[in-house]
């Protein structure tokens, strides 16, 4: 690429991201408004400064819209499954059942926000953990802002080796590493990810009740982290496809066993500020699972002054839902797990269903400054896509709730209406953000950003390597895309600066995993399903400092080993 890395080129490359952050964090704009404006800036800078011709601009926007459609399939289906559970009045039985199994409110939050979110990331990915866990947390009386923040932090560690390790396999593929280097890189990646996992657990405890939360949750976090992070590390040397799934599955079972420990088995009052006023009032002294409940997500949110745009269930509906068991309330999520396991973990089924796919092929493009974007085919296999799993689960849940009699007349219409209302604004945001990241990648802006960081830091680059990985995830909302975007760059930078390649590549993918907690696409999924669309900036104000802290800690670890 024939462009000097100067403050001007770097600053212009960074401008769309700076504007996005400024509008969302400073001015309180939602992603649906800040995203399109930042896209316009990215477009203008790509065209006028980075000399991206019409062909590049056109193909990159087409790639962006196409990718957005596949992401939106998950968004719409996630909202649908939430609305089905809400209309079926499943959140109150769910809260009651989980409270009975895990009487400690901290354990309830950790079970949904850390263990279950990680487990879902181990199976499905694509933002599903946030989209599913945020409303579940709202359902047990967590304020929507924290209901979005907690799974964002909790699921991040499993982005590299979760989802059948697609992000890790992508890194291996793009860097062309041999088996020995792959084993070394997996070791470093899993070690850094363990750091991320441990701090993720501690950060959730800290959000729960600052130092008191950490003191209360420390034994559980250590055990869970040994299972999640430790098992991932050990298994990474044995099987690089299933390790994240196995570790998160074992941990999800283990948290219920931990809930039987003396320290966690007694009922405690839900006094944390992360709970809504309604939950704190109905559970002031730990009356236990049979205490009057905060009447599902909608009621809880409304009393707390944070609307999720949903209607409250009627008294008749409450009576109908009163007899629902935890298992019945969990039917859509059981269906989700069953469908996902059946399709993804049985290779013949996966191969047969995955054979039907369609997509667009994009040719290699070159800007007038010589930046080359390789050709690629963007395929969509609907029958093995997470969106389809969610859609099937929502349908199964709806039919089950109808049979149980918890869906009132006109329920289907209300479900569809609320889903459409919630999904439309996030649709615009997702399209704009993904189109922006594609335009920036195709025009060479992203390359300039990364090269600028490397040039400025030289031998100390290892410290910032996780940040670069995080930047990739921030822009693309994907650990895989970040690895594809920056994998070769990190590899080359390690060679040029004389740093140890496997450690830098491990830092890349660990940083990219951490970056998922600040990715606007992920934040949007949470704010949409938790009913606080437009408040993405408030979520980012919490997660960005936490991401920076984790990235700096991983960076410090890299300095020691690279």
């Amino acid at each position, binding site marked *: 690429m024939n462009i000097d890395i100067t403050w001007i080129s770097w600053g212009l490359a960074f401008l769309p991201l700076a504007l996005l952050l400024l509008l969302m964090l400073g001015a309180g704009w939602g992603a649906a*408004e800040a995203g399109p404006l930042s896209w316009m800036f990215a477009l203008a800078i790509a065209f006028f400064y980075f000399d991206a011709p019409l062909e590049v601009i056109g*193909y990159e926007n*087409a790639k962006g819209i196409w990718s957005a459609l596949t992401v939106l399939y998950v968004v719409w289906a996630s909202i649908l499954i939430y609305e089905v559970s809400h209309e079926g009045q499943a959140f109150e039985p769910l809260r009651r059942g989980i409270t009975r199994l895990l009487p400690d409110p901290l354990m309830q939050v950790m079970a949904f926000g850390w263990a279950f979110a990680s487990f879902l990331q181990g199976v499905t990915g694509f933002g599903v953990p946030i989209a599913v866990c945020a409303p579940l947390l709202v359902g047990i009386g967590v304020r929507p802002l924290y209901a979005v923040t907690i799974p964002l932090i909790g699921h991040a560690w499993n982005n590299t080796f979760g989802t059948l390790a697609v992000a890790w396999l992508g890194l291996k593929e793009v860097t062309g590493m041999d088996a020995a280097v792959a084993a070394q890189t997996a070791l470093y990646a899993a070690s850094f990810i363990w750091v991320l996992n441990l701090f993720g657990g501690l950060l959730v405890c800290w959000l729960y009740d600052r130092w008191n939360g950490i003191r209360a949750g420390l034994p559980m976090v250590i055990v869970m982290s040994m299972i999640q992070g430790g098992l991932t590390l050990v298994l990474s040397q044995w099987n690089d496809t299933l390790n994240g799934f196995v570790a998160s599955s074992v941990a999800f079972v283990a948290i219920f066993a931990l809930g039987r420990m003396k320290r966690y088995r007694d009922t405690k009052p839900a006094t944390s500020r992360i709970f809504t006023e309604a939950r704190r009032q109905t559970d002031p002294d730990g009356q236990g699972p049979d205490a009057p409940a905060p009447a599902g997500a909608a009621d809880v949110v409304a009393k707390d002054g944070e609307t999720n745009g949903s209607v409250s269930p009627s008294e008749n509906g409450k009576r109908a839902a009163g007899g629902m068991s935890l298992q019945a309330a969990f039917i859509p999520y059981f269906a989700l797990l069953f469908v996902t396991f059946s399709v993804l973990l049985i290779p013949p089924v996966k191969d047969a269903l995955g054979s039907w796919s369609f997509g667009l092929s994009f040719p290699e493009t070159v800007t007038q400054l010589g930046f080359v974007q390789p050709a690629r085919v963007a395929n969509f296999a609907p029958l093995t896509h997470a969106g389809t799993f969610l859609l099937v689960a929502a349908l199964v849940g709806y039919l089950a709730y109808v049979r149980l009699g918890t869906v009132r007349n006109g329920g289907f219409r209300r479900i569809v209406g609320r889903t459409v209302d919630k999904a*439309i604004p996030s649709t*615009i945001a997702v399209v*704009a953000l993904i189109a922006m990241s594609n335009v920036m990648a195709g025009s060479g802006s992203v390359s300039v950003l990364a090269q600028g960081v490397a040039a400025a830091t030289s031998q100390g680059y290892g410290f910032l390597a996780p940040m670069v990985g995080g930047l990739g995830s921030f822009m693309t909302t994907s650990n895989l895309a970040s690895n594809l975007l920056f994998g070769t760059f990190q590899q080359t930078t390690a060679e040029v600066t004389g740093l140890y390649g496997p450690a830098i590549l491990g830092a890349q993918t660990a940083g990219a995993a951490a970056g998922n907690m600040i990715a606007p696409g992920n934040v949007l999924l949470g704010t949409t399903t938790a009913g606080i669309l437009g408040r993405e900036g408030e979520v980012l104000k919490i997660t960005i400092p936490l991401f920076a802290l984790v990235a700096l800690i991983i960076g410090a670890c890299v300095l020691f080993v690279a």
Partner: protein
Amino acid sequence: MNMTTRLQVIAGVASVIALPVIYFGLRAGGTSAPVYGLALFFCAMTITPLLRVLPTDFSSGEE
């Protein structure tokens, strides 16, 4: 459906329509179709930021 939602639906639909116009226009080697497609996409992307700055009365009318 209020005016805001209605305009957002239009923006979403316009974005989806822009995709084949841009993609197939470029594949066919033309210049006008991709330009029209990008213009359509650009218009769609202006809607939500505009709603932010337009008077509230314009966008809050319930049907």
